[in-house]
């Protein structure tokens, strides 16, 4: 199979790669670019562990083709902190212990970032429905919801 040449922007940097036409963006990120922060929990769009933002839209990178990233802006967990300054969501996830095993955490952080970008003061219910595409098996979600609530407060003040 002939490779597809792709030029895209990932976390603000120009990136070029060759990928197979049937290769997913998740595979490209993890296996070609070494960005293993996005996780594969299912490969079928059901767990959200592979969440990334493409042109301001939250997507499951396991359902997007690598070739589709051409000319777009991709944001992954690796680009969430600014230098050594954690994003308020990252900080609040740590403070609230919103992670146990942490495998779901990158996906939740990306999804929560997208949620707060669209709705800076969500209610508990809006958070719960906004994050319903992400599975966590460890926490029971309680501390995740609280961390997002707390981060929303901080971000409004900023």
């Amino acid at each position, binding site marked *: 199979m002939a490779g597809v040449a792709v030029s895209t922007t990932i976390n603000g940097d120009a990136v070029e790669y060759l990928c197979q036409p049937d290769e997913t963006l998740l595979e490209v990120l993890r296996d070609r670019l070494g960005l293993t922060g996005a996780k594969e929990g299912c490969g*079928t769009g059901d767990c959200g562990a592979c969440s990334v933002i493409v042109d301001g839209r939250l997507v499951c990178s396991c359902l997007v083709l690598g070739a589709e990233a051409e000319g777009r802006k991709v944001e992954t967990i690796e680009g969430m902190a600014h230098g050594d300054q954690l994003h308020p969501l990252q900080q609040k996830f740590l403070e609230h212990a919103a992670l146990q095993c942490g495998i779901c955490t990158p996906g939740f952080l990306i999804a929560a970032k997208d949620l707060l970008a669209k709705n800076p003061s969500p209610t508990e219910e809006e958070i719960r429905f906004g994050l319903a595409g992400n599975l966590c098996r460890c926490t029971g979600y309680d501390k995740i919801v609280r961390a997002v609530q707390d981060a929303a407060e901080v971000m409004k003040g900023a």
Partner: protein
Amino acid sequence: MNFDPRFSGRQFASVGTRPIRPDGVDKVTGRARYGADFNMAGQLVGRILRSPHAHAVIKSIDTSKAEKLAGVKAVITAKDLPDLTDGDAAMYDILDNCMARKKALYDGHAVAAVAAIDARIARQALKLIEVEYEVLPHVTDVDEAAHHHAPLINDQVFTEGLEEKPAKPSNVTKRTQFGHGDVHAGFAKADFIVERSFKTEQTHQGYIEPHACVASVNPDGTADLWVCTQGHFVYRQHCAQLLGMEASKLRVTSSEIGGGFGGKTHVWAEPVALALSRKAGRPVKLVMTRDEVFRASGPTSATSIDVKIGASKDGTITAAEATLRYSCGPYAGSWAEIGAMTAFACYKLENVKTVGYEVLVNRPKTAAYRAPSAPMAAFAVESAVDELAHELGMDAVDFRIKNAAQEGTRASYGPVYGPIGIGPTLEAVKHHPHMKAPLKANQGRGMACGFWFNFGGQTCTDLNIGMDGSVSLAVGTVDVGGSRASLSLVAAEELGIDYSHVKAIVADTSSLGYNDMTDGSRGTFSSSMATISAARNAIKILRERAAQTWDIPVEDVHWEKGHAIAKGEKYGNLSPLSLKEIAAASGKTGGPIAGHSELVADGAGVSFATHICDVEVDPETGSTRVIRYTVVQDAGKAVHPTYVEGQYQGGAAQGIGWALNEEYIYGKDGRLQNAGFLDYRIPVCSDLPMIDTQILEIPNPNHPYGVRGVGETSIVPPLAAIANAVSNAVGVRMTHIPMSPPRILAALDAEREG
């Protein structure tokens, strides 16, 4: 072992605080490396071919076409994993489960594997492997399998534990029995008796991270294995034994683990990856798909349980009896046995009898799932206890308080209890504001109790003090949910230094002595014991060094708040030496300072929990929402309370999923029909309310800080608590888990017609 594990009732400086975990930043930035996040130069992609049949003889496997495909570097079958188990039946079962030998025993059973240069070629190669099967009749239901007409899964199985060896083989591998007193006499004294049968369906641990490993076997016979596991030392033993290697030649590194809950305590793909690497002469990365995780790893038992409980008018239970049948998958297990031990553990009973039957079925080999076997038994027993309370006209909590086990009670599984927390959790629930929260139409409240043993086990810890006085702690139990934070707190506590100066890591199998599996809620219990012991050993050396520096007898040197202090009038002019000062001088006082500990942490404290749950049932659709949930559990001592709360909440959430949704659905063809997160639906954020927690601390007398295990008990009460809540909401006793909408509607219809 000159280490005194007894509880000392000390005041804590670090333990009980809530600092940020040491591995946290890596996990929120995506840097933490899990099973699938590791790669080696020249690595191949491994894939496994799995049986589509629930039960079939493997007549032949032709791998020649696959081998010829360009890019394929190795193809293996059972022949490449010869039987080296030497009569060890349990190991043989593990081997056969990794790669089917004569028969495929469940849909998803591995029959062959390939290693190729990329995933596409590997997948293509699987399609070129020709397996000739002779399909046999199968059985997946636990009750059907126990029936004497059922297709036999293994004709060498004759039920153990009967008075006489049975004449014919069956699918029941073992009968076990526990109890004391005379249940017949007890029931004769009862004024009220409740007798019911219950069923629970099979569920999966549902960790979000699929099994993943990278295996690299070198030409000189040494090997490395990177893997997500709950116990890398046990994986090393098992893999080395199955591949005929010396354990010390196989170095196993545990990756960060993306959830296990008991499901990552058994080898599955790892021996296969090693065998592929050995044959191909290159590293092999093997990652299961989600479909494979469901079809071929986990799950827990499906059960069928009969319970009978009798009580006198004053509310005293006079007798209790249960018969428990648990599915084991196609290999012998001891799952019903655990159910039989835990079933009535919460109660003070004069007459009690439980009998367990282990049943083989054509489903994946049952694996431990958080307090394995206890939730199902608790569901049956706590449902019957609730019903009995109703019949007696007693409040469900008061009835349980009246019959709760206490210190000195003979447990239904045999021994007499030391100090335990069932009574206090019940009292806490009785006075909890949740019990007074108003309920609306179609809502119901339920509560239930749960018990789990908790384990200890072999544990090894190294504590090294750097020249700058900072401390590295190397532990051998895998961190499944924050234990590096807890253990750093413990080291800081013992040494009397600040938490920020301690850095804990999980060491690989070549760097530390053997550690048992991180199971049975033992991580913090055992490794904290070993950490305390290691720290005390280091303190002994620190005191010696200070004594040397001062040139005084070591007996006169005490350790307080991170400092060596010369005790006694005569040393008035000696100012204390800090750990940092002693460490800085260590090169000249005898070399590096470290404390090691190798011990068996035994005496883990049993733990109890009581949960309260409010649900709302939609009578039109039968769908149920949990609207309020409270967990009360004894932790012994909560080392890092936030993570203890997290364990309580996580267990409750898993229990809620089990109670309401999750189940393995098999078709008539014996194939699993819902092997994905879309159809095997675990709770999502919008399904759940906040989960309130209350930590009780009834110290475990066999741990210096009073720690008990906390990880598992929280999944025991939810099935029953929710079933009781649903039953109270709809007025019909629910006896089949999960209480999915169709089951609730069917129960309502039956009631209307009944």
